[in-house]
């Protein structure tokens, strides 16, 4: 007889025990005193079985979970590996693209260094410019080996080289590179810091363009312009000086006809002189050597003086000139001589481009632009106008509008370039509004001093 068979008569107590708890077993025990020992034994065996079953089930479920997790991990691992491979391939492709881009640059030197100046990147442009192959340079030479020592602070050459970029984030200027065959090159070098993926500074980049020939050409042009300027001014000084002697000789006065001829000579000499001055000034602007002598300037005086200068020519051409300026004047900070030149240019252009019977109006007014006080000086004419498509090129040196050429208006195309340069140097703007056949208005806006 087994314990299970003996338990059977006990009726509902056994299934309750099998399915149930130790508390239920105790209830049976107390309620049925005839089978106490068997029941206690049955209960003692049943409890671990139930517990074991429960634990088994839990373990099976945990095992199933683990299996699922394993599968998930394997799948995830696989996709991570796939992603990694894709990423690696992309990185390789990118690196390849970068290298091929850098290697394709042959006219600029691209040199990368570590933080101390040791060269890590050396493109074919650098090879060509400085004469050493990559293998002899990378991880072997410092960038400062290729710089003229005179350009650098001998105590800390590399620090002095990157000082500008360190302070300003980037630095572009001319440096002297020394080639392996002993030549000196003037190179415009852009220096920028290079960072790694974590944003830490990894080193420096030096992108250089050989400017040796360009700079030599600029110097030659400068010398040429100042030579020409001197060589043209000197004979013009003689022409104008001796003309003055003849025309002002009170002991031997000229006939009206002689005076008229000599006046023509003088006017043309003055025209040549202005051209020389304009050429020299344009060269100075191009070379960045144009400086202002700032003072408080009343623009009303400038406008009236420009009208004065243009009056004779305008009257001879049958063009009326009128002036509208505020009675109290309008003061800006600027170079009176240059502002006068700018205003004269605009007025003389307006008169030149306006046919007989037309008019030129000079207006000066105070206004606000973007909340800042400005002085607006406008010169309007009723002249031939400028085709819309050509208005963008007006401020380019030697550009002449088709209306100027068609109407044979004399000039070389420097006046507006100069006027624009003067305006810009004063922190102002120069705008044009024009309709072909109806006229043109140039408006010069300059920062105004509050009265």
């Amino acid at each position, binding site marked *: 007889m087994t314990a299970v068979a003996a338990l059977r008569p006990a009726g509902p107590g056994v299934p309750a025990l099998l399915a149930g708890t130790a508390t239920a077993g105790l209830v049976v025990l107390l309620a049925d005193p005839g089978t106490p020992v068997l029941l206690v034994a049955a209960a003692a065996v049943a409890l671990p079985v139930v517990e074991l079953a429960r634990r088994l089930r839990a373990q099976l479920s945990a095992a199933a979970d683990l299996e699922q997790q394993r599968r998930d991990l394997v799948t995830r691992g696989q996709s991570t590996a796939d992603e990694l491979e894709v990423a690696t391939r992309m990185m390789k492709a990118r690196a390849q693209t970068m290298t091929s881009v850098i290697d394709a640059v042959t006219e600029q030197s691209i040199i990368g260094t570590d933080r101390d100046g040791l060269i890590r990147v050396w493109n074919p442009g650098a090879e060509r410019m400085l004469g050493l192959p990559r293998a002899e340079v990378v991880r072997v030479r410092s960038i400062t080996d290729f710089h003229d020592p005179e350009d650098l602070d001998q105590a800390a050459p590399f620090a002095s080289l990157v000082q500008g970029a360190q302070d300003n984030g980037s630095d572009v200027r001319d440096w002297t590179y020394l080639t392996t065959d002993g030549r000196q090159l003037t190179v415009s070098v852009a220096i920028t810091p290079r960072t790694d993926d974590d944003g830490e500074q990894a080193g420096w980049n030096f992108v250089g363009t050989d400017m040796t020939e360009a700079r030599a050409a600029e110097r030659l042009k400068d010398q040429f312009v100042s030579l020409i*300027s*001197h060589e043209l*001014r*000197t*004979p*013009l*000084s*003689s022409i*104008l*000086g*001796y003309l*003055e*002697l003849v025309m*002002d000789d009170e002991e031997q006065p000229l006939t009206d006809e002689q005076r008229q001829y000599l006046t023509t000579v003088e006017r043309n000499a003055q025209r040549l*002189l202005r051209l020389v001055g304009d050429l020299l000034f344009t060269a*100075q602007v191009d070379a960045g050597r144009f*400086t202002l*002598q700032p003072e408080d300037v009343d623009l009303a005086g400038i406008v009236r003086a420009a009208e004065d200068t243009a009056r004779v020519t305008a009257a001879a051409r049958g063009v009326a000139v009128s002036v509208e300026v505020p009675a109290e004047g309008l003061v800006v900070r600027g170079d009176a001589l240059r502002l006068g030149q700018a205003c004269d240019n605009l007025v003389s252009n307006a008169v030149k481009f306006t046919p007989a019977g037309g008019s030129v109006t000079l207006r000066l007014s105070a206004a606000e632009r973007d909340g800042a006080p400005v002085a607006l000086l406008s010169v309007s004419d009723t002249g031939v106008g400028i085709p819309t498509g050509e208005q963008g090129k007006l401020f380019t040196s030697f550009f002449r509008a088709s209306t100027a050429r068609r109407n044979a208006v004399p000039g070389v195309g420097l006046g507006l370039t100069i006027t624009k340069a003067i305006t810009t140097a004063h922190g102002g703007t120069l705008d044009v509004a024009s309709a072909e056949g109806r006229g043109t208005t140039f408006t010069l806006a300059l920062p105004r001093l509050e009265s």
Partner: protein
Amino acid sequence: MDAPVRVLVADDEEDIRLLVCVAVRKAGGTVVAAVADGTEALRVASAERPDLVVLDVSMPGATGLEVCEALRADPGSSGCRVLLLSAGASPDDVARGLAAGADAYLPKPFTVAGLVAQVRELTVGTPA
């Protein structure tokens, strides 16, 4: 009547040199010498002790600026006035001229009337 002021003229361009001489005479001065180079100008200046030297800036031998500096360094010519003439008309050119010790600077091309006025101004009260 005072004796006329004594003027030395130095310019390598003959036409300009003659023009300057005319202007000096119009201003009531007398030209003690008209020379074409800077070294000669210095030699004449120390021999003649003129009241005024009109110097072109760009000259062979010594430039007008160098002549001017040498005159200023020589105690014997300390009372001598210097007028520089130059084709360079930029503010920098003028500043260089005045820094060299010139009393006045006239850019070329100058007007004869302007030069006459300048010579008169520089020689006012100059004892002859």
